[in-house]
């Protein structure tokens, strides 16, 4: 066999490959008149084992819908189109639901995803049993899971409202990792946390990837994403605009392909806090620049 320089470096299929995903919703307005809205029109990305891929975009860009589509969690009036492949194999909703919670785990956005009426221990034990642990085994698994997240065992007795934001995030991580997933989808895991907790959450995502799993980090905070991700996929209004290595986000962003990604980068307070030169421009310059109006 000859080795060709054109051979792909990593020939194993990606864990997750999403191609041209579109999601439309059928809604009723004014009685029986129906209309179709398509918040996601064309999103593509892939995630390989051992890497963190960040999906970055504004609210309403369709980031969370992509996560829900991969988990087979879209609401009944949603119609997905395009393809989602798992380890190279085409999937349907049933296949995705079988993967969800076992091979693919969701690290949700907020503590409201916990049951407010059950203790942390009860919820962890229930989640452990769903991944196949015995009743006796679940107790031990729950204990190990919280300790692995750097929490004290006493947390098991607490109820969700007694947890701080940072502790809650650790509990959610513990639950997400119970089934040893191959892919973790973290949906906006950092808003509302103190800077130290943000760093801790991001570091934990990195260590999940270093443990061999793939991580899809869905976020609007590009700074945090750049700190842990290998690649960044930028989406706007339901479309993938570009995929860039983290290193492209540097200096003035001239290595970024799309004007939107450059605008996002330049708008950061640390990068000049500049306004995009389009319809969103309100007119006033900052810090002594001339007024444009």
């Amino acid at each position, binding site marked *: 066999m000859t080795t060709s320089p054109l051979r792909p470096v990593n020939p194993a299929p990606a864990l997750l490959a999403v191609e041209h995903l579109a999601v439309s919703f059928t809604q009723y307005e004014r009685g029986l008149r129906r209309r179709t809205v398509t918040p996601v029109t064309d999103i593509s990305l892939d995630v390989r084992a051992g890497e963190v891929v960040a999906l970055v975009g*504004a609210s309403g860009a369709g980031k969370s819908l992509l996560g829900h589509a991969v988990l087979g969690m879209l609401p009944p009036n949603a119609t997905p189109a395009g393809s989602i492949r798992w380890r190279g194999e085409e999937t349907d909703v049933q296949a995705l639901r079988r993967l969800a919670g076992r091979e693919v785990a969701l690290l949700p956005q907020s503590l409201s995803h916990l049951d407010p009426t059950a203790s942390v221990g009860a919820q962890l034990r229930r989640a452990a049993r769903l991944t196949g642990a015995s009743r006796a085994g679940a107790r031990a698994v729950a204990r190990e899971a919280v300790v692995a997240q750097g929490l004290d065992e006493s947390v098991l007795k607490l109820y969700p409202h007694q947890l701080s934001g940072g502790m809650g995030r650790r509990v959610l991580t513990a639950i997400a990792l119970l089934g040893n997933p191959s892919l973790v989808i973290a949906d906006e895991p950092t808003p509302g946390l103190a800077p130290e907790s943000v760093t801790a959450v991001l570091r934990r995502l990195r260590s999940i990837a270093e443990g061999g799993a793939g991580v899809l980090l869905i976020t609007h905070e590009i700074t945090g994403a750049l700190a842990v991700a290998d690649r960044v996929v930028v989406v706007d209004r339901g479309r993938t605009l570009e995929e860039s290595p983290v290193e492209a986000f540097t200096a003035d962003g001239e290595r970024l392909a799309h004007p939107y990604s450059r605008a996002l980068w330049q708008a*950061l307070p640390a990068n000049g806090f500049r306004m995009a030169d389009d319809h969103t*421009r309100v*007119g*006033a310059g900052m810090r002594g620049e001339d007024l444009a109006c």
Partner: protein
Amino acid sequence: MLIGRGLSYRYSRRGPWVLRDHDVEVAAGRVLGLRGPSGCGKSTLAAVLAGLRSPAAGTVEVDGVPLGDGSPGSGPRPVQLVLQHPERAMNPRWKIRDVLAEAFAGSRDAARVAATERVESEWDAHHGLVSPEWLDRFPHEISGGELQRVNLARALFTSPAYLVADEISSSLDAITQTVLWHRLDHEAHERGLGVLAVSHDGPLLAQVADEVIEFQPARPRQGATHG
């Protein structure tokens, strides 16, 4: 000046003091940054300064006049408050046009006309916060960033003398964040609005504020001291 003096506040009669003898002064035409970690009490201070919560002790004065209780008929509040979650600040069953019309007094129809004119003239003149295209949509039909622009526009439509912005961009993308803050910068430095910018985000405050102060948490079990 928007002046809070000796402000004390706690959420229950025997609860811990969240504010204890706090002083703060926001000057007209300036952006004052108030920084501190989450849960330290900055939002409580913001709500007291905006007249949303009455302090247990201390006074809030707006240009020499004590802040009223905002009872109906007293007109729009001179201090407007904008919070982090715009979707919680508007009626989900109202169109954006009606959400904005709330800022104008008079009959509902007149207020709707006033809101529409204001949106259109600002958009034409120097690209306003609100696109005329959004007026006939419901809050859930536009993105979170667009909704926060509506929320800020509604506060500005009452022509307040002071505006308290409490983490208004912390759940938004960087581009929407610059849109909101460039507008507040313009309102402050060109039109004389006094702005209190509350945030845990140091780099952001360094960009937008003329001066940044660190929130000093209330000291537990101690007598009142100024500072």
